[in-house]
């Protein structure tokens, strides 16, 4: 090449032509991208595949486990809880959404904001606060005893406690979707219904509710999924669903049985996610081009104004006021009783450290998958996208269990190391990081990258000089989301953190399992503050978009 003149001349032309008639050279940058993305998605598949292998290893034992009545009882209890919470959430979310968007209930805006707040409470923190307030010898009983002489309240533990806790924590998923749908809805449709002779109730049932169905369906599936994956609330409320049973079996070293149940749980959640994907596709189709041209009209409630106010106030009190008061009470009592906050230091640092590392690793892993899905559309990359979204179904306990087995059998050096914990975080939170990056990349028009190519940059230079700086907001959003979710993650941290390492989540868990309610308050408050951040950021961004 050194003998080739710098400027093109007739003598260099045959060389170039010869070069061009050779078979296509390997495209290294594309191959690298594919290799990285396939590795990441293969890692995602590791837990379910490994659980399947372990479960089938048991062979006839697994089959007999399936036919045992106790197994069916667990499946039944899990399904029952999941359906009940979804139904109860709908009963709260539908009237609340309508009241906060379409009525003149007093303090309407205030209820709209406060009713979404329970989202920031991790389930085990919520369960701890409700149990310590309403349980036997709880705060409520202590308050009532001097007045009424009641020494025993009906127990909160079991189905009703789990139903109450999970409903109060997860109804906002349905509420937010329903509120958004009501705001988007075209008010002229209701006016047409009225002009055709329908009264208000008929209009709501025959015109409004059908339009809410996609939003309610999507929200309901999210609620059901939340219940299936939840470990903290059912464990504290002592209701034996899959996650709690799996944890107990893991503790008693009945590992084959645990793997089998974890696999069953994964199948259940996958089923739900598949349903969710289907409705989401249809819901977005329904909403194409539909945008309310006018602000929604507000119905005057008349005599119903104050009953509606009481309903809103009751939900807000149970969902937000009660937990907040109880938390502050335990915190104050703990501080007065000489509970030291110094011991929180190490737990905070290890939680921060593992969550930051988890966020960085997860975003780096999600980047090649997102780039491939957005820039190289095709059958295989569409499959990768679906698999990544389906990973959203993986419950923390199932992933943790699979990694424990895998570590013990194949990678002893990884077992009980931070690396293993971070791997679990990556598998669990990849869908979140992928979502943020996918959106950012989709907004980046390919002509920007093509311009840089035609101005003389190689693909790798284009990535660092154009793509990376321009998707930085998406990277930051994805990383913060993963960081905050990792801070809250309980089962994976319980099972995989190195021995002796405690995080905020495990602090709360340990204290509550031993009924040290005062000791759990401070880490619980820190966790709530952590999870409030993304919600605050999101609402600030949404308000900016509205302006």
């Amino acid at each position, binding site marked *: 090449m050194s003998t080739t003149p710098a400027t093109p001349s007739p003598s260099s032309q045959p060389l170039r032509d010869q*070069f*061009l008639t050779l*078979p296509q*050279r390997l495209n290294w940058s594309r191959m690298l991208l594919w290799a990285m993305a396939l590795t990441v998605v293969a890692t995602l598949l590791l837990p379910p595949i490994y659980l399947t292998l372990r479960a089938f290893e048991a062979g006839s034992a697994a089959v007999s486990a399936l036919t045992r009545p106790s197994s069916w009882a667990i499946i039944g209890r899990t399904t029952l809880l999941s359906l009940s919470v979804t139904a109860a959430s709908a009963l709260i979310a539908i009237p609340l959404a309508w009241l906060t968007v379409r009525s003149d209930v007093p303090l309407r805006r205030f209820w709209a904001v406060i009713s979404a707040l329970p989202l920031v409470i991790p389930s085990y923190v919520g369960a701890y606060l409700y149990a310590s307030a309403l349980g036997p010898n709880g705060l409520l009983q202590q308050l009532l005893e001097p007045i009424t002489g009641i020494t025993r309240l009906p127990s909160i533990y079991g189905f009703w406690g789990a139903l109450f806790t999970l409903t109060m924590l997860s109804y906002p998923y349905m509420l937010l979707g329903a509120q958004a749908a009501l705001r988007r809805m075209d008010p002229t449709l209701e006016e047409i219904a009225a002009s055709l002779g329908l009264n208000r109730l008929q209009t709501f049932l025959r015109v409004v509710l059908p339009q809410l169905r996609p939003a309610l369906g999507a929200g309901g599936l999210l609620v059901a999924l939340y219940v299936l994956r939840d470990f903290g609330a059912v464990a504290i409320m002592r209701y034996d669903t899959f996650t709690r049973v799996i944890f107990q079996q893991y503790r008693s070293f009945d590992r084959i049985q645990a793997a089998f149940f974890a696999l069953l749980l994964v199948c259940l959640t996958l089923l739900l996610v598949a349903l969710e994907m289907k409705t989401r596709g249809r819901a977005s189709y329904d909403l194409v081009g539909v945008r309310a041209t006018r602000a929604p009209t507000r119905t005057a409630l008349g005599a119903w104004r104050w009953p509606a106010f009481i309903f809103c106030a009751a939900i807000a009190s149970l969902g937000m006021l009660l937990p907040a008061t109880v938390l502050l009470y335990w915190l104050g009592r703990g501080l007065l009783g000489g509970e030291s906050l110094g011991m929180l230091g190490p737990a905070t640092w290890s939680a921060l450290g593992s969550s930051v590392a988890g966020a960085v690793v997860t975003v780096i892993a999600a980047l090649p998958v997102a780039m491939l899905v957005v820039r190289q559309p095709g059958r295989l990359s569409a499959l990768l996208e679906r698999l990544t979204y389906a990973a959203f179904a993986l419950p923390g306990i199932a992933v943790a269990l699979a990694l424990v087995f895998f570590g013990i059998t194949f990678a002893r050096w990884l077992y009980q190391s931070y690396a293993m914990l971070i791997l679990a975080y990556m598998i669990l939170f990849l869908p979140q990081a992928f979502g943020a990056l996918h959106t950012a990349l989709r907004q980046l028009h390919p002509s920007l990258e093509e311009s840089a190519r*035609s101005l*003389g940059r*190689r693909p790798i230079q284009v990535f660092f000089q154009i793509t990376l700086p321009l998707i930085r907001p998406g990277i930051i959003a994805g990383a913060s989301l993963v960081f905050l979710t990792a801070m809250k993650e309980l089962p994976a941290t319980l099972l995989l953190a190195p021995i002796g390492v405690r995080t905020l989540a495990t602090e709360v868990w340990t204290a509550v399992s031993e009924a040290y309610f005062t000791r759990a308050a401070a880490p619980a408050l820190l966790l709530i503050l952590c999870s409030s951040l993304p919600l605050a950021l999101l609402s600030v961004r949404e308000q900016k978009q509205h302006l």
Partner: protein
Amino acid sequence: MSEVSCTNVHKLFGTVTAVNDLSLQIRAGEILALLGPSGCGKTTVLRMIAGFEQPSQGTIQIGDQLVATSKRSLPPEQRQVGMVFQHHALFPHLDVAANIGFGLRRSAAVRRSRVHDLLELAGLSGMEHRMPHQLSGGQQQRVALARALAPSPAVLLLDEPFSNLDADLRITLRAQVRTMLKQLGTTALFVTHDQEEALYMGDRVAVMREGQLEQVCPPSDLFLAPASRFIAEFIGVANFLPATICAGCIKTELGSLTQRVDLRPGTSVDLVVRPDDLELQPDAQGNAQIADRVFRGGDYLYEVELDSKQRLRCLCNHIHDYPPNTRVRIRLTPGHALAWFPEPAEPHP
């Protein structure tokens, strides 16, 4: 000498043929406008020249370099091709000067002076430190053009560069762009679906349809000598008037024209008659009747029905306004030879 040659280029996407056996030369220093309805494959041609797509068959050469065959393709960064996109595609994280200097790989001093020259040429002096979102649509597109021109590309490719702008701006900007390109003597391929824009920008116009090239010629020839019925209908308004060839003349319902056609006398053809080739006068004993009219500001476009039920569109100035059903006389007065096509295989219903 041609700067870009596409030779027998085919492009398939899966089983769909986007470009079908296209051979096209862009001469050094000319602006070639590539015109066609959307989906005709014109953007695919541009992207193959740029190196973002690879031909399924055929070769592409830029200058004296072969840049693409069906087997190998030189990556875009090694082709010295400038690109201007419909969505200007300015790098939003870089200011105007950094955008224009992006493709320059020389010393800082050389780069600064080149950026300075281009800012001046594009009429953007003093804006070097603005960010892209602080510019108007027309300014953004001029920065995009300056950025593409900065490394002195062998050929500049423009993909519908004005279609995102409003009508007034489009007309000013295209004049500015044409002046800039001619001043620099740039070889350019200009892709558009807007025929007026193509006729204005192109030294020559290439018309594509369904992946195939229909005609390449100077803009005026598209009117005077359309190579196909498609072009006659696509460019401007065309009437097809049935006619019969006779010795040294063409006979039509509106009288005969003196024009030599090398066909056997008695052959039936369709004559391409433009609305301005016809003359219309009110006449109670005339040969036609007004069926409809459209007022277009400067003139009226009448649709008239001849006694044979043949309908023709005919242009008339705005001084007279004849209502429908007025009896008129139509005369054929082209003043130049008319294009004709053999009658379609299947007869009119």
